[in-house]
């Protein structure tokens, strides 16, 4: 954030202070839902809002004390510093309030749309096992939820789906492994005999199946990681990082770190879940155009009888069919490798952009390497 010119500071101070007081006064109205009955302070403010408000008051008090000391001891440098700092606090307040209220409304709106579609399409998207009439989805549909909540429901449904696929894949692999090692034999003491492995050729598919199991497990790990990230972001970004960022940003020597914390809080609480909803739309669009892509077709498994004779049952043909391979590749490559990378990249790009606005120049190369 560019520093204001010293000459301009006194002129700006009065309107800024008035604006700050006004903004702080109406912040409870902006943040709190319209209460039908008289509410307590705890009900009117969410925990993070109360903490952020307290952080702002602390910053404001510290700077005011510095200003008084500057006035009392006739230290113009300290006076000027206090004026500049109060300007920075005002900038922080305005940015945070505008962004949180504006983007939060946006977040609720798109979550409501997504929840409505999700409830409607739950079965056709391959999430038939999910209870689509949950209280959470109903709440989101009526505008009472957020992108963060929808992102968690969607991610959890992908985890459920991938876990089921993992179990199915390992079952295929174990069955094929067993059948491909069956070796029929007939010996006459040491006079000779023969043995034969009828299903040996099936072991050639084990490499592909192993790759599929690895891909599904990687996807499962990525989705579990995403779910865990969403959970901890929901629990801590606004209750911990945002207030801390506001406090740090109020002082010149910690302004950059504070700006970065605010950018991280907004990025991971708002932008990341919105990116997940975008991913959901990509997924729903793919399924809409490829109805068979919602579920991976069941493969007929090879068997063997008590004589060790192997019957393939069209297993190999099923394995290479588009109904089996295409949804699997979409889920494991696009949904769980490419899109998570993009989501993190988009979030970190926002963090970098917003951190620069808030006074912290984030190193791009470090971010890209993290992404």
């Amino acid at each position, binding site marked *: 954030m560019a520093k204001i010119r010293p000459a301009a500071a006194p002129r700006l101070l009065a309107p800024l202070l008035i604006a700050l007081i006004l903004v702080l006064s109406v912040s409870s109205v902006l943040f709190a839902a319209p209460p039908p009955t008289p509410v307590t302070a705890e009900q009117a403010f969410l925990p993070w809002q109360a903490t952020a408000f307290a952080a702002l008051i602390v910053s404001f008090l510290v700077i005011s004390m510095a200003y008084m000391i500057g006035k009392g001891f006739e230290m113009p440098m300290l006076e000027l510093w206090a004026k500049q700092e109060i300007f920075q606090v005002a900038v922080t307040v305005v940015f945070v309030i505008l962004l949180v209220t504006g983007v939060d409304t946006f977040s609720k709106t798109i979550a409501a749309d997504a929840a409505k579609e999700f409830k409607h399409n739950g079965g056709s998207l391959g999430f038939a096992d999910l209870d689509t009439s949950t209280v959470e989805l109903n709440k989101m549909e009526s505008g009472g939820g957020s992108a963060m909540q929808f992102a968690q429901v969607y991610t959890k449904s992908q985890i459920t789906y991938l876990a089921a696929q993992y179990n199915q894949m390992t079952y295929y692999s174990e*069955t094929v492994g067993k059948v491909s090692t069956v070796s029929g034999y007939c010996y006459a003491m040491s006079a000779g005999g023969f043995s034969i492995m009828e299903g040996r050729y099936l072991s050639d598919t084990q490499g592909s199946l192993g790759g599929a199991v690895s891909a599904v497990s990687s996807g499962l790990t990525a989705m579990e990681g995403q779910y865990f990230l969403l*959970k901890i972001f929901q629990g801590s970004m606004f209750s911990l990082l945002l207030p801390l960022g506001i406090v740090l940003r109020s002082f010149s020597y910690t302004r950059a770190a504070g700006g970065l914390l605010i950018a991280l809080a907004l990025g991971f609480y708002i932008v990341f879940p919105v990116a997940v909803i975008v991913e959901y739309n990509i997924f729903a669009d793919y399924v809409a155009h490829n109805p068979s892509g919602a579920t991976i077709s069941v493969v007929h498994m090879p068997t063997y009888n008590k004589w060790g004779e192997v019957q393939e049952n069209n297993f190999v043909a099923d394995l290479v069919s588009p109904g089996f391979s295409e949804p699997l590749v979409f889920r494991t490559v696009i949904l769980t490798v490419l899109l998570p990378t993009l989501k993190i990249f988009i979030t970190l790009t926002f963090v970098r952009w917003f951190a620069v606005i808030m006074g912290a120049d984030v190193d791009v190369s470090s971010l890209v390497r993290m992404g």
Partner: protein
Amino acid sequence: MVGVCPIPGAGVTDWQGLAIVGMFITFCAISAIYMLGQMFRNPNITAWSRLEIYQAIISAMIIVLISVSITAACSTNIGDMMSFSGLTFPASAKVLPSDTYFDAATKELVAMRNLNYVFYDMVRADVGEQEKQATRSEYKCIILCGIFQGGYSIQPGAGLYSRIGALTMAMSSLQLSLFTVLFQLWVLKYLEIGALLILLPLGTFFRSMPFLRGFGSALIAITIGLFLLYPFLIVLNGLMIGNFFGLSYTALKSTSNTAYTYAAVFFIANVFLPALNFLVIIIFTRQLSAMLGQEVDISRLAQMV
């Protein structure tokens, strides 16, 4: 953090003693040069000495400021931060509300290391068990099992190799998380026993010297950035993951799917969040070093490391 935090009634700590000695040497050296300037009536030397004594006073003020910050940090109870955020640490960390945040950071990392090790070991045991099953062969004799034999053999667990391959990847991820948390523990230990005892006095000394002021400023900025922010950010991570870290040791045996959950959770907790921590430290250190007189390109330094 016993070596850095002041013990009540025990006077100055080691690093404070070293810093005071460093400042004393600096003042003596500048005074001697000033006297030489007076003796030889060289105005350049006396003017230079006056400028340097001004910088030395600023360095002394920095030391006082750091001492105050560290004392405040050492005396801050973690309970305050828990009530501030409404969050808690993972239960296994056994962080007490009366702990300082240095203690809490150490406990948090030790708990994460122990948990990570246990789950890594459990996945390894699971892989070992499945390896054993994969190599088992069975012989089924169907007819004439005396002199003549006819039947088939089978390796029932041969298909487990696919699962083993996937579990090995989860094991590698857990291993990476384990190494990263160990790295963090050793960085914390290094900060406790080394950083302030050596780098800060050196930094203040160099900052008072001509031509070395930038180098000294950089050392001070790096030390403050690492020492004050690093444990603090670890504590923040502990609070962030605390409520969602209800892992149980016995869960893994039931289904192997849980191995991937743990791989993901430990990767986020021990690799991803610390990466964000270092980003914050880099930003803070860069700005602080610029304020002290030397902008450090710490991101390039970090890349080199």
